């Protein structure tokens, strides 16, 4: 077996072993956002300026201002599925998002609350943030 093939085998075996452990992860049993969000839809990417970051239980959220077509400021929020614990394990801190940061976010829209998104993809100052779930 070539060295390249060996390393591919090792890599795949490792990935499979990780999957074998991960598939039982109770995190997957955590509730989905289907009750509040249209999970089959995506809104965005929406670009705005961060005005607040609540890194708190049960679910962290970012508040941000978005300029609409007429130049007026609209208040928006993006809510995370993971808890602060899960986000911390993915490397987040409460300083990961700061007032004045430029945010680009996309995700399923809330069913009733205007300008509220389920944060699926979040970029802060051009850098993609990892999700904790």
């Amino acid at each position: 077996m070539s060295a390249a093939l060996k390393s591919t085998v090792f890599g795949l075996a490792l990935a499979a072993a990780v999957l074998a452990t991960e598939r039982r992860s109770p995190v997957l049993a955590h509730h989905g956002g289907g009750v509040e969000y249209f999970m089959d839809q995506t809104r965005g990417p929406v670009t705005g300026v961060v005005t607040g970051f609540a890194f708190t239980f049960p679910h962290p959220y970012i508040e941000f201002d978005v300029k609409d077509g007429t130049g007026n400021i609209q208040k928006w929020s993006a809510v995370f599925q993971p808890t602060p614990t899960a986000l911390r394990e993915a490397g987040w801190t409460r300083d990961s998002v700061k007032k004045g940061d430029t945010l680009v976010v996309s995700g399923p829209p809330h069913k009733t609350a205007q300008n509220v998104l389920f944060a699926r993809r979040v970029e802060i100052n051009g850098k993609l943030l990892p999700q904790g779930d």
Partner: protein
Amino acid sequence: MERLLRSMACRSVVVRKACFVVTAAFAAAIFADVTEMAAPAQQSFDPRDVAGHWVRTTPIVSFGNVPSGGRDNPTVQEAPFTPEGRKRYDANKPGYGPRRSTQRNDPLGRCEPLGLPRQLNAEIVEPHSTWQIVQTPGRIVQFFEYRHDWREIWMDGRALPASKDAEPKWNGYSVGRWDGNTLVVESIGFDDRSWIDKFGYPHSDEMRLEERYRRVDAETLELVMTITDPVVYAKPWSSDTKRMKLNREKTKRWDEQIYCVPSEEFPFQRLIQSGNVVEP
């Protein structure tokens, strides 16, 4: 491995290498499973020792066997409601399970205590929460990281208070005893404002709760709960078997201190328009 490859549809030389890679990967995965399953049997344990950090491995979010999603044609062991019980159940509007709704009145969203047995049916799950049992000769204490709550089970042989003397409390009054290697905990005196799980099943202040714990191996604790509550349920109602796995790693980490903080929870509930927040 060679025989395994032949037994699969890996006869073409071209796909042989790819098949080898996939088979090796699956073999590694199976090996990982087997070693993990074999480990508990090799360790000795005291069946009357229930101390440690425990994490659920079964879907314990509901008291009964109601699936959490409610979308997969669930086969549900329905609760044996009395007419009064059905009325109370219908009045509870949960955010989870088959009856989940955007307009809810879950005590959880108002920072009210979860109470028992809901704590046992709640977030005793990684990563954000676990459940710790501390055992002393006269008392067992259970710590619930989610909502940073705790309850005590008296093991000193005392009797439960008479029902008329048991002022309703969120976690009730609990005494325990050993029946062989099964820990049997009896509780009365519950505040009827709590739900028994996040799906909105109710109870009255006449609820009597029995918990039966069994340590089946070094890594596994099993729990079956039975509720006797003549106001809400026409006959005693038992949960399915809940299983918890010992988390040795957790003892080395900081606790999360997950309090319910009204100044954080209420703005969140308002943001998602849950209907949970009721102004005092």
